[in-house]
């Protein structure tokens, strides 16, 4: 008798595209085994494409609904869902789009997708209360370079050669319909996070982005400032720190004294 394991292996192959995978093990009647499998395959493709469209509505608008369904199908065959929770599905779409020939004309698509995945992550991220400002004010000036900040959970940084967040904004439901985004406006440094005002997609100046990126990878404030200064020498370092705190990007800090 067909074991449960073999049945599920055959069914899985059928959902992956083997049209006759269930022949001989399924009662036919009004519909053949292949037709019955096709119903499940349709449900599978439609529901995963819908889940992907929920997370990437701007990518869907940019490529059009029909193309997006096909794109979703191609994506699923390479990066299937790995979780019983559909909210986990689709993280690899930006990377997948980078080598997706059929959409190569839309070079900004992967970065727009990064902004959208960032939005999705931020939406479900943990609620946190950032440290009170007076705690930082109490740290002596000579210790500032030894500060190590922790960043907000579920925060995403996107450095794009394109106006990725401008494109994203122009495709929001509340955006005016006549916005034109000039693709030659150049690079953008984008922060996506959720603070008390909801999910924010914010363009940062390059030095501030470099500072936050260094902080996020564990650098002390001193090293982060040095990095920001190297990347963009005219960065107002104090102003950048204040802005990052105002955005709620920094949620806690400790003082790391160098040893020796």
């Amino acid at each position, binding site marked *: 008798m*067909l074991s449960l394991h073999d049945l599920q292996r055959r069914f899985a192959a059928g959902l992956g595209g083997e049209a006759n995978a269930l022949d001989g093990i*399924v009662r036919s009647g009004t519909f053949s085994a292949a037709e019955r499998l096709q119903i499940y395959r349709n449900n*599978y493709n439609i529901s995963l494409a819908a889940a992907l469209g929920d997370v990437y509505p701007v990518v869907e608008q940019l490529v059009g609904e029909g193309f997006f369904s096909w794109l979703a199908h191609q994506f699923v065959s390479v990066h299937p869902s790995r979780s019983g929770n559909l909210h986990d599905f689709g993280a690899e779409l930006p990377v997948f789009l980078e080598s997706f020939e059929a959409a190569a004309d839309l070079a900004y698509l992967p970065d727009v997708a990064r902004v959208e995945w960032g939005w999705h992550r931020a939406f479900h991220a943990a609620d946190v209360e950032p440290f009170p400002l007076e705690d930082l004010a109490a740290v002596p000036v000579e210790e500032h370079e030894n500060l190590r900040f922790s960043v907000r959970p579920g925060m995403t940084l996107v450095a794009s050669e394109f106006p990725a967040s401008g494109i994203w904004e122009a495709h929001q439901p509340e955006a005016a319909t006549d916005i034109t985004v000039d693709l030659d406006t150049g690079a953008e440094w984008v922060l996506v996070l959720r603070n008390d005002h909801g999910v924010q997609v914010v363009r940062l100046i390059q030095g501030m982005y470099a500072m936050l990126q260094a902080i996020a990878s564990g650098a002390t404030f001193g090293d982060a400032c040095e990095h920001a200064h190297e990347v963009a020498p005219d960065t107002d370092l104090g102003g950048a720190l204040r802005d990052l705190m105002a955005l709620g990007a920094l949620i806690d800090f400790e003082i790391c004294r160098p040893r020796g």
Partner: protein
Amino acid sequence: MGQYRDDQQAPALDGVGIGLRAPHYADVLATLPSVGWLEVHGENYFGAGGTPHVYLDAIRAHYPLSVHCVGMSLGAVDPLDRRHLGHLKNLIARYQPALVSDHLCWGAFEGTYFNDLLPLPYTEEALSHLTDRVAEAQDILGRQMLVENVSSYLEYEHSVIAEWDFLNALADRSGSGILLDINNIHVSACNHGFDARAFIDAIDPAFVQEMHLAGFAVNEIDGREILIDHHGARVAEAVWALYEHACARFPGTPTLIEWDTDIPPLTTLLGEAERARRIMGAYDAVAA
């Protein structure tokens, strides 16, 4: 096994509930409609924070809750996903639902999830596998679960147990309860040509703790029809009739109106809930 059978972890649900979906959060909180309870999809609250939890926290203060899952893949041969169950356990601790449920189905193979409710063969092997899995899930969660019958579009040649006998046996052996989806019974009965009333008559009332009502779609393929469970329409007349039959057999069983695609205004759901309440009430009166 069976140690969770008589659990009373939270106040039992009373009467008719509706599925709480994101488009209705603000409406529900502003109007506090008179329904007995609410049901949410557990996986929609597996995230650590944000709007879903803000609303659910606020709404939970006014209504008893049931947590219904779609992704445990109870019937899969893959190992149970402990991370998934961990999220569910946290959710249970936070919101103290009266009932927790998932489906009699499988949905993943070798780590690939299909995020669908795929049909199982009704064999002794599958029954024994499901019994172990449900027992394991209940042990991890530390509470009883309900298992729901699904709509199906195929039957396996080697199935030897009737679906209703399978449900009863699973509940009996694992100590789980049954969530009887009346719409799914109708859909599967039409698709496979069995008698939906006989299904209901065969289910042991001692196991049934919740019922579901929803709408289905009719797909036509070259002039032949098959019913598809899509939760995107009003409850069909045939399903209301079947629900009356079910109320006679399982009087007073908490019943849910589910609607997941093309979600209508809240008032439409409340209208369906009112109709269910009248039917349930009529049979309660008879039973009393």
